[in-house]
């Protein structure tokens, strides 16, 4: 199930909220656990077995590590077993096809591999259980002895499908004890509605522009279309992903959980390093904590530090998908982060603000081309078209039509990608209390009603039997 669907919004969520709040506190984890299993099974009736296996597997591993905490070799062996097990499952479903096809290409073989669909959310929940086991091993978090509480953590439907990656330590206490006031619930609703609007009203609509441009044959692209298209994608992926994270955070709050913020206006960054501190924050911090720092981080000389950066960015790329373009995309950012550590950040400090913004946006936007085109030569052709190489026209009717049709939306998106709207609302609230309150409420209601309308339209499909 996805959040941005009528069935979630008007059947699943009201039902779960009702049952949850009617149930006594003791049973609330059970309710949440059961709801999460239904939520997952709705879309993945078969793969739910894998998720349950992962949950039980690392629940037991946690217990065993705890039991042998005074005998490090055994604990370490279990830790290794747990990590290998998790990675094996992830690799089997996510990377087997990719590895085999590369091996085939390299050695001219024809090994067949079953083309399995990727279980939804596997990259997220595997990382969560891994963080738990590692933290138990290091004694950073208490072992969870209650399988329901642990299961609630792993499968929790608000963050199951698209993050944020919540570390066990972040919510360990809330799993046992949590309190929700009406204000907290309302804050959750605010986050959820904002996220829903980002996804349904902003991301989906600008996505239409990218779909248009992306379906144009590469040789017919004009420079203006290429830019409109990739800017559309730039906004689409941000509002889609951050919208999802906002909805997750909001739902979490409605049930009394506090998830970390996953996006903080990444497109206003003035360096690539800053961008990655604002984009998909929970993933970056996961890699820092469980890969970069264990490898030695920056404490073992420049050479090792660059090796570590290389590994982390390779893995960051690979995490996004089993294809070379994602690896190239990760390493591309790794390079800029490394340059910035070496000298660029010092330069950037001396540059005017706008130059930093422009530099970062350019790197990020070109990066999205690498991200979006699985076929790397196509990505290269697209980048050439953006910069006017390869004999592309500058503009055509299609580009002008798209510009006049989507221009207003693009401006709105650019505005919404900055903290300005939120600041404006805060100021309004500070200056005229009641007006600000009414404005905030009106915005929420309008967003909610419009999002519902767009969701209903999604399958609007008049059949014209008086065919054409």
């Amino acid at each position, binding site marked *: 199930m996805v959040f941005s669907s009528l069935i979630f919004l008007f*059947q699943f969520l009201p039902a779960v909220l009702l049952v949850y709040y009617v149930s006594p506190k003791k049973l609330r984890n059970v309710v949440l656990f059961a709801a999460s299993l239904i939520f997952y099974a709705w879309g993945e009736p078969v793969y739910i077995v894998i998720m349950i296996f992962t949950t039980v597997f690392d629940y037991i591993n946690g217990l065993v590590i705890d039991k042998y905490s005074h005998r490090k070799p055994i604990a370490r062996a279990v830790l290794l077993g747990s990590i290998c097990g998790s990675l094996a499952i992830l690799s089997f479903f996510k990377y087997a096809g990719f590895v085999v096809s590369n091996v085939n290409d390299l050695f001219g073989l024809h090994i067949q591999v079953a083309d399995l669909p990727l279980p939804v959310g596997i990259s997220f929940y595997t990382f969560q259980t891994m963080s738990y086991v590692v933290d138990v091993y290091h004694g950073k978090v208490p072992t969870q002895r209650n399988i329901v509480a642990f299961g609630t953590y792993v499968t929790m439907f608000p963050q199951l499908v698209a993050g944020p990656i919540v570390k066990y330590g972040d919510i360990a206490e809330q799993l046992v004890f949590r309190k929700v006031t*009406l204000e907290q619930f309302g804050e959750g609703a605010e986050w959820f509605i904002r996220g829903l609007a980002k996804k349904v009203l902003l991301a989906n609509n600008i996505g239409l522009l990218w779909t248009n441009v992306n379906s144009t044959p590469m040789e017919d692209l004009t420079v203006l279309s290429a830019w409109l298209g990739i800017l559309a994608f730039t906004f689409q992926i941000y509002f889609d992903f951050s919208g999802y994270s906002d909805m997750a955070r909001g739902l979490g709050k409605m049930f009394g959980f506090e998830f970390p913020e996953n996006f903080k206006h990444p497109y206003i960054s003035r360096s690539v390093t800053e961008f990655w501190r604002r984009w998909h924050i929970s993933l970056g911090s996961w890699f820092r904590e469980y890969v970069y720092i264990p490898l030695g981080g920056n404490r073992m000389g420049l050479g090792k530090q660059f090796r570590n950066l290389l590994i982390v960015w390779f893995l960051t790329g690979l995490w996004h998908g089993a294809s070379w373009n994602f690896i190239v995309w990760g390493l591309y950012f790794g390079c800029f982060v490394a340059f910035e550590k070496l000298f660029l950040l010092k330069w950037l400090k001396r540059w005017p603000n706008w130059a930093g913004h422009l530099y970062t946006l350019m790197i990020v936007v070109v990066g999205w081309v690498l991200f979006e085109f699985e076929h790397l030569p196509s990505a290269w052709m697209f980048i050439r078209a953006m910069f006017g190489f390869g004999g592309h026209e500058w503009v055509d009717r*299609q580009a002008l039509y798209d510009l006049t049709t989507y221009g207003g939306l693009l401006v709105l998106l650019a505005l919404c990608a900055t903290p300005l709207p939120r600041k404006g609302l805060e100021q309004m609230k500070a200056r005229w209390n009641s007006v600000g309150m009414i404005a905030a409420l009106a915005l929420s209601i309008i967003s*909610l*009603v419009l999002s519902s309308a767009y969701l209903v*339209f999604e399958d609007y499909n008049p059949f014209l039997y008086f065919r*054409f």
Partner: protein
Amino acid sequence: MTRYDKRTRAVTGLLFLLFILMVAVLNILTPDQAFSESENRVLESRPRFSLRSLLGGKFTSDYETYITDQFAFRDVWIGIKTDADRVMGKKDSNGVYLGKDGYLIQHFSSPQDAEVNDRIQAIHSIHQKTPDLRKYIMLVPTAAALLRDKLPAYAPLGDEHAALNRVRQSLQPDIRFVDVYPALYAGREEAIFYKTDHHWTSKGAYYAYRVLCKQMGIVPKDEAAFNIRQVTDAFYGSLYSKSGFRHLQPDRINLYLPKEESKKKVEYVYEGRTADSLYQMDNLSKKDKYALFLNGNHALVRITTEHPDGKKLLIVKDSYANSLIPFLAEHFTEIDVVDLRYYEESVTKLIQDRQFHDMLFLYNVKTFFEDTSILNIME
């Protein structure tokens, strides 16, 4: 955090709960509908549960379609959506442009070379089998070509005129190409197309009829020979449904009824039904009012008139023909109307059986290139 902040949040929370619960309850209370009048299709009904359909993922996806299809006040939500789109500057929806003066205009993409060639080949193949039958082909440009000034600025459209010329140049010279483009272009200031429907009006069809007559060597009737009768002023056509755009004026439908009345027999051959009028007036109370012309589209319709000279015409066509045929019925004794989208028998055999004098292909440009049923004529 101020007192107002707290209060705003609390109210937001309550309103959110109220909203989702209210819509949920409304959805439970509104009875399911089998058919959507405005979308003109059967709506999904509650899927039957079985373990197999659940594990295969079919149950859940059917159930989601069911929920959206049966969503309470669906039409209201659709209207809210298209209104919001309009506010944001969107000028098309589902392949329909929101034009000036309340015109909805369908998109047209230029055909590929292969698509043109396939159709030419289909026509040539039937011509080879029936070389003695005189053939005409009329391809009607749509509003997208003739009402360019009504389109939103820069609307990216294929060139219908160029597509027509490609057909004209590839046809064997003894197949007569009826070029209605100039006549319709000259009349483009008048109401030759409906504003909310993809068809031409009877007026548009009348202009084309004059061109056709000239080429067939028939003397067309003057406009003065008809009583022009408005039969409805509340027609919301196919493009209104397709786009979902609201706040538009409905169309009027005018019929050209000959002042000199004569009897007609209209036989719906496959349905085994006969009527004595070219117009099925009770369709005016339905959604698709254009279906009043010849009761919509049928595999084979045979029209017989009291015309004395015994000439027989075969028309292979799309729905554009339905409003032109009443004019031709004044000049032929028998007209057989074949819609290849539904007709499954051999057209060659029909030609041999009925001994036609003339054959007319009549399509609008868009259907001609997009619909593939014309290729079946090759057999």
